[in-house]
Every structure is written in C-alpha cells, then in structure tokens.
C-alpha cells in the first residue's frame, strides 16, 4: 500500500518539478530581456559638417576676394530672391548666440544682439521696411557652410549667415559672400599675468595649449603655422573660454572682436599683440542667389556712406578704439 503511495507521490513530485523547471525555461533569462532592451545598432555619428574639400585656390595676402557688383537697395525687382523672402514674411538668418559684441544672446532679455545682428537688421529694413523680420537660427562655426548648402530640393536652411565669417576663396567655392563688412584680425588671449604677447612667444615657452573653434580659418592657421603649440579645438569660441577658465588651455586665438568679448567677460584675461592676419568678414549666402548678394552689397554700400556703419561700430566695438574707415568694397566677380 505504501509502495503505491510512494510511487504515485514520486510521479507527482517529478511532474511538479518538471513543470516548474519548464516554466523557468519559458520565462526570460537575462536582465536585458527583463528590461525589454532591443539591441540597437549604434547610431552612426553624423559629422557636423563635411570637411572643407581640399582647395587648390590661393588667397593673396592683403587682398579680399571680390564679390558681385551691387544693385540698388531701394527697390526689389519682381521675381527676385528678395521678393520671395518678402513674400515669406521673414528673413532666415544663421547667427551666433554666444559671441559677445558680434552676436550674443543677452541672458537678461533673451534677445540676440551684436554688430553682426545689427547688420542683419539693416538688411531686414531694406527688404521689409521693418528691421525686426529676422528669424534666427543659432549655429556653430562648423555649421556655417552647411546651412547655406542646398538640400536635395534646392532649399537652404537659412538665407544669410552673419557669424564672424572670413571671406576666402575656398569658401567661395561652395557659397557666395557679400563685400567685406568688417576687417578683423587674429590675435591671442592669455591670462592677465602671462608675459607672452604672441603665439611665437607661446611656442617659445613650450608645452602651451591654445584653443580655437573647429572648422575655422583660425584653427587651420594655428595648426599650420604654429607647430610649437598644442592646438585644441572646441565647438565654439565660447567653449574655448570655458576651457581657458578651467585651466585646460593656456591661451585662445581668434579674431580680435571675439577676444574682446571674452576679455569683457573675464577680468583675468587680456588680449595681446598685434593682429597677425587679416580676417575680412563677409555675409554668407547660397552660391546661386547672386541677386541677393548684389542686393546685400547695395545695403552695405549705403551703410558705409550714410554713417550707419560707423555708428554701429561705435555702439558695439567702441572698446577696440575709435571707429576706423569702413572696409572698402571689392567687386569684379
């Protein structure tokens, strides 16, 4: 009798055990199964901008690449790019929001303002009769060419880029520039107790790290002409200032306008030496919008002659000294 009992019991036990073990086999095994994680392919990093194609063109020192001859900014021809913009009701512009004095967001008002921005307000005034028809797109230095490059449908992300952009022949291969609206020069910012007054002297000190934003003429020149210092790149100029304040770099090189803005934000920094390069700033526009470039050149010409340029200079860049004569336009393209 007990033999039967034990046998049935045994069968029962085995059945129970096999059952539970089978259940376990069905339930998810690993932690990532429990979390419901699906193996995702690592997203391919899209580079912020294609590296500038190796250009064979040569910039002649002291000479600015010519632009298209101007047209009158007083009227807008039918069927022109300007008319399309006016019909859209807004001028889309690519700007910096962290380059003090040129294009920076005032944290108190939230407004983006600066020399670059005021030039754009003048263009807005010429197209719309209203200086405030601007739609800002904040971009990094590396995005400047990308936002002006037409996509598959032939549209660009912005109409004009005003972001401390140097006119050079390599950039002329992908976009178009206005005439020079500001003549900057490359300088160096160092700690206020530093004795170095130029990049050459920094090279002499040895083991110095110098920061410049990625995809800029500044960084290229730093790497090519000053191999004695270690070039460090950052996404924007302002991130260079962060690295400088954190002691991760010893100096920043950049255009005097930008560095002046930095010195204004950091009492322990100073801009030293003479400008060792010419950085003619131009407004960038899509290569195929020749009429817009001509129109903008007309606006710039008027600003030079009626005193607007000088008053803007005094307003934003007076810290650099008395306003010089506006840069002369170069035409002939």
């Amino acid at each position: 009798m007990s033999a039967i009992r034990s046998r049935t019991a045994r069968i029962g036990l085995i059945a129970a055990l096999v059952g539970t073990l089978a259940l376990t086999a069905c339930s998810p095994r690993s932690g990532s199964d429990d979390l419901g994680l699906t193996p995702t392919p690592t997203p391919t990093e899209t580079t912020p901008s294609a590296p500038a194609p190796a250009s064979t063109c040569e910039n002649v020192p002291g000479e600015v690449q010519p632009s298209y001859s101007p047209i009158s900014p007083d009227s807008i021809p039918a069927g022109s790019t300007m008319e399309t913009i006016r019909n859209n009701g807004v001028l889309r512009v690519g700007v910096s929001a962290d380059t003090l004095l040129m294009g920076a967001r005032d944290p108190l008002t939230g407004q983006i303002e600066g020399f670059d921005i005021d030039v754009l307000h003048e263009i807005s005034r010429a197209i719309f009769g209203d200086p405030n028809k601007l739609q800002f797109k904040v971009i990094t230095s590396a995005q400047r060419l990308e936002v002006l490059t037409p996509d598959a449908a032939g549209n660009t992300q912005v109409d004009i880029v005003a972001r401390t952009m140097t006119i050079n022949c390599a950039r002329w291969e992908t976009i178009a520039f206005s005439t020079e609206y500001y003549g900057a020069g490359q300088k160096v910012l160092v700690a206020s107790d530093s004795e170095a007054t130029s990049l050459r002297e920094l090279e002499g000190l040895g083991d110095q790290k110098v920061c410049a934003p990625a995809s800029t003429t500044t960084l290229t020149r730093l790497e090519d002409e000053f191999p004695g210092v270690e070039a460090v790149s950052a996404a924007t100029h302002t991130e260079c200032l962060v690295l400088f304040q954190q002691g991760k770099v010893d100096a920043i090189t950049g255009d005097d306008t930008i560095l002046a803005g930095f010195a204004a934000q950091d009492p322990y920094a100073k801009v030293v030496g003479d400008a060792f390069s010419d950085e003619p700033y131009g407004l960038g526009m899509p290569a195929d919008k020749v009429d817009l470039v001509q129109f903008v050149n007309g606006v710039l010409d008027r600003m030079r002659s009626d005193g607007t340029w000088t008053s803007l200079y005094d307003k934003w860049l007076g810290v650099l000294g008395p306003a010089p004569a506006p840069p002369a336009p170069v035409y002939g393209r």
Partner: protein
Amino acid sequence: MSTTAAAPPPPVPQAFPQANASAQPANAVQPQAAPSAPAPAKKTRSTPATLRLLLALSVLASLAFGVAGFQTGSSQARATADASAEAAQLIGIQSVRNDLVRADAIAANAFLVGGLEPADQRAEYDAAIDDATQSLTTLAADDKAGDTDFAQINSEVAIYTGLIEQARANNRQGFPVGAAYLSQASALLNDSTLPQLEALVLASADRAAGSFTATTVSLVWLVIALVALVALIWVHLWITRRSHRYLNWPLLIAAVAMLAVGILGVVTFSNTAGAAIEARQNSYAKTLAISQAYTSATEAKSLESFTLIKRGSGQTLEAQVQTAVADAQARLDSTGKNYLISDDLGNGFDSWVEKHQEIREKDDAGDWDGAVELAISQDPGSANAVFDSFSEAAQDDIESSSAATQNALDGGGALASLLGWIFLVTGLAAAVLSWRGVSLRLKEYR
C-alpha cells in the same frame, strides 16, 4: 545518492555489490529462497550485516533529507531576497538617473527664462540633485556587486553641479559664457554619467534575473531530499517484509513524517518558485516597463528645453525627442502583456506630447519667443503642469508595482525559509527514529 550513502558501511564480509541493493526488493519478497543465479553474493551476507548496512543507509538518508531540504529552503529564501533587493536597487538606480535628467532639464529651462531664474525652479533643481545624491549614497551602501562606479558617478555629479553653478553665476552677470558652462555640464551628464548609470541598471537587472532563476534552480536540492525520502521508505518496506512485522513504529513515524514534510515541501517550494516567476512576468515586468517609460519621458522633456536653447538648430534633438516619446509610449502600452498599465498613465503622457507638439510648432514657425513662453509656463494646463502630473502618476505606479513585487518575493521567501528549518528538524528526528527502528530489529539477532 543511495550508493554514496551506503559507502561507509560497518564491517561487511567480502565485497558486496552495491548496485544490487536497489534491484533487490522485487526478489526479496521470498526470503533467501529465490535461487537467482546471477546474484550469489546476496546469500553470503548475513541478515544482521544487511541490517547494519540498512541502519547506516536509513540514518544517512534521513540526514540527507533534512540537509537537502534545508538547503532548498535557505537557497530559495536567499534567491528571493536577492531578487527583491536587486529589483529595489534597480528601481533606485533608475530613479537617480531620472532625478539627474530632471535636474538638467530644470537648469536648461531656467536658462531659457533669462538671467534671473525663478526661485521655485531653483528649489526644484535643488530637490532633484538632493534626491539623486542621497539615493546614490544608499544605493552604494546596498550594492551587492561592490561596483566602484557609484563613487565615480558621485564625483561626476559633484563636477556637474559645480559647472551648473558657474553657468548660473555667469548667466546672472549677463555673460554668454554661462551657456557654454551649461552645455559642458549637460555633455558630462549625457556622455559619461548617464551611460554609467545605464550600465549599472543593466548589471542590476542581470543580477535580478540570476536571482529569479535561482529560486527555481534551488529545487534541484529538493530532488535530492526526495531521493533520500524514497530510500528511507524502501528501507522500511524491506525490513517490514523481511521481519514479517508490519509495524516498526519508529521507522513508520520517520517515513510518514518525511513523506508529509516532503509533500509540503514540493507544494511550498514550487509555489515560491512559481510566485517568483509570476512576479517576474507581472509586477516586476510592469515596474520595469513604467520605470523605463518614465526615464524616456523625462529625457524627452529635458531635450525639449535643449531644442529651444539651440534656437532653430534643434531638429536633430527633436528627432531624439521623438525616439524617446515613441519608446515611452510603447512601454506604457500593456496590450498583449501579462500585466496591465492603466490607460490614464498613457493618456497623461500623450497629453504632454500634444503640448510638446504645440511648442515645436511655434518654434518651427519662427515664433521662438512664443515657444519659450509655452515651455517655461507653470500655469495649470501648461506643458510643465501636464508633465508634472504624469510624473507623479508614474512614480506612484512604479512604487506600488515595485511593492507588489517585493511582497510576492518576500512572502514566498519567508515560507521557503521556514520550511527549510522544518525539513532540517524532521530529518534529524527521522535519523534518530530510523536508528531506533532498525536497532530494534537488529537486537533480535543478538
């Protein structure tokens, strides 16, 4: 098992074939009479010697029953306790992650407001950081794996808060460099701290999974206990038949007690294992689903502020927002799952998604100021208010289903542990009883 239990027998004449011991019962019904030719060894062993062997076998079987049963109970109790603790740890790590993402979102949102950030937002940021750092300390103390990552995360949080303070100080003075500090802080959080926390979550989930499986694997010990039980019953039957006495009280009591406890054990231990499997597929899975949905939702909310800060360059971030939103919605949808997530939670999230859409539409249409106004509003019905109510509901649900998991596991574990002790006591008692029972028969040969 029975062969190893019989290995150290008292003095035994000649070699005896152990394998035959278990094959014997069928033949043993006719005492010694069956002339089974292939087993001549049987005849050479005297009955007292066999009894001595059975004495050892029954005592060892009883002890094995007790020890193996105890082992089942304690290892199952340990496994459920580990699973329960690890589940809590996992939720804790995810909530630290959510706190940090939230703090980052608030800091970014405050930056949108302007130089002087609203006091209540500042307080919210402080509370989120406070929560995160306090939980990190507790989590590090409770950490079973002894990961040093917590120390690393703690120090990164310190660096992060430092950078945010610098961003604030600069922002307050109207210096644009504040924005760069903010983005450096965010980059540290997103590129280093959060991935480390995610790795910890995964490691914790793996350990929990191991513990969940271990609750079932511990049943292997129960099989050993049951084999010992069968051995004892066989000894009892053999002696009963050999001695022509139906009742050997001590042996009978031992066998019946072990059988009763054994059946109880099978029922209880498989119940505990079943409860663990059930919890894993229901409340635990639900907790993880909501917790992960909440993480994705917080991320989407945080990215919203950054799409606005980028001002016009936020499209790539908006794609990430949409990925996070889709992930959260998928996890909140319990259709076809073993658990049920209330529709309210999903609807709550969806209404935030609508608010987010409004903000994006404004920004995309070029009305950045309008978009910012919507994004920073704290009015009832604003994006922030809607998200807050979703966030509260989600946290409540996480807490309740997490408590359900722990109840299921802890209850089963306590029962398993208790039964383990019962096994041990029964085994020891049965060992004494079997000794006594077999000794009674043995005495008859003196």
